[in-house]
């Protein structure tokens, strides 16, 4: 009976959504805002990767809200999980192979992470993608050797300062007569590393913040698992 009800529910929902989707102008999207952005992004922002121009320029306020959500989630997680009790048992060590592998991977991951962050305005990638790789770099040793101490105060220092850099850059624009989050420093030459004004700086701050936050989240969840 329960299975039948589930089937009916899912089927009805699927039918409804398909009926709606059939009415959408699929494949011929009405690019209104997007079209205008495609035409003007090179002049206004100067980032070769237009998605970056949208993320940090046109929709910078969304991005601010987004990193703040990660921050709020980290704070909420800390509040919910509390502090790890001293002397709680840990997972066993993962053995020499994984330990060595993690030690080898660490510098490479950090390098790749920073590369992706710093070229976010030129090629696919950016602060979020690179930040996740950075977080993985710092989480890997923790997986291989669960006893590795995590420097939570240090992480929260990076997190706080990086977030502050993002907002202060926006506030500088506001206080010098522009609008909040307006890109500064001109656009530079399209396609070069030092172009797109403050965007690379913002992406660096964002990448560090995302990396620190995700690493902190993962470390806390890993701690929670052994804290019984």
């Amino acid at each position, binding site marked *: 009976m329960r299975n039948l*009800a*589930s089937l009916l*529910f*899912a089927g009805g*929902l*699927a039918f409804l*959504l*398909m009926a709606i*989707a*059939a*009415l959408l102008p*699929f*494949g*011929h*999207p009405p*690019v209104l805002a*997007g*079209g205008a*952005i*495609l*035409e003007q*992004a*090179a002049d206004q922002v100067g980032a*070769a*990767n*237009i*998605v970056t*121009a*949208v*993320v940090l320029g*046109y*929709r910078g306020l*969304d*991005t601010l*809200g*987004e*990193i703040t*959500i*990660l921050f*709020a*989630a*980290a704070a*909420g*997680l800390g509040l*919910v*999980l*509390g502090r790890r009790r001293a002397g709680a048992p840990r997972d066993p060590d993962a053995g020499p192979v994984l330990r060595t592998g993690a030690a080898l991977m660490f510098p490479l991951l950090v390098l790749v992470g920073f590369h992706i962050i710093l070229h976010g305005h030129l*090629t*696919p990638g950016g602060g*979020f993608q690179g930040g996740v790789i950075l977080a993985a770099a710092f989480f890997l040793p923790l997986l291989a050797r669960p006893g590795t101490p995590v420097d939570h105060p240090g992480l929260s220092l990076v997190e706080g300062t990086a977030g502050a850099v993002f907002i202060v850059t926006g506030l500088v624009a506001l206080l010098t007569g522009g609008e909040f989050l307006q890109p500064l420093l001109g656009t530079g030459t*399209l*396609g070069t590393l030092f172009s797109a004004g403050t965007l690379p700086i913002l992406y660096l701050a964002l990448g560090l913040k*995302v990396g620190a936050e*995700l690493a902190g*989240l993962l470390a*806390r*969840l890993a701690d*929670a*698992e052994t804290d*019984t």
Partner: protein
Amino acid sequence: MMPAGLPFLFYAGAIGLLVIGISGIVLSRNLFRIILALALAEAGANLLLVLAGWHWGGSAPILGQGKALETMVDPVPQALVLTAIVIGVGIQALALALAVRAYRAYGTLDMRRLRNRMNRDIAAAAGIPAESSRDAPAGGRPTPPVPAAHRSGGGRA
């Protein structure tokens, strides 16, 4: 109205994920399954959003690659999906943390049982004798005992 073939498959994927996810959220009893279903449904919504900018023969919206502006896809949905994914990650991390604590406190991941135990606790805190709950497990099936180590981790830690 919709051309058969590939585009149909894209939409079927997005809607399939949405339907699986929403059904899972509404119908599942296991907490972990509900959280997974939430992630699936979010993936479906994100796919639907990114499809909003798709068109035949579209190229990535990156300048200096020799592609004309007209062929580039709408960059806005891509930025939106990036934002939506990060939001989803934050919510799922919190959900997992809460699930860990709820399991510590009550020793079960069954949503209905968790809810019964919670209502009993709320009533007890208010000094109301626990009313015979309507959706309690039939036949007075006992809830599994909480290991002592878990019990000490829950409650007002």
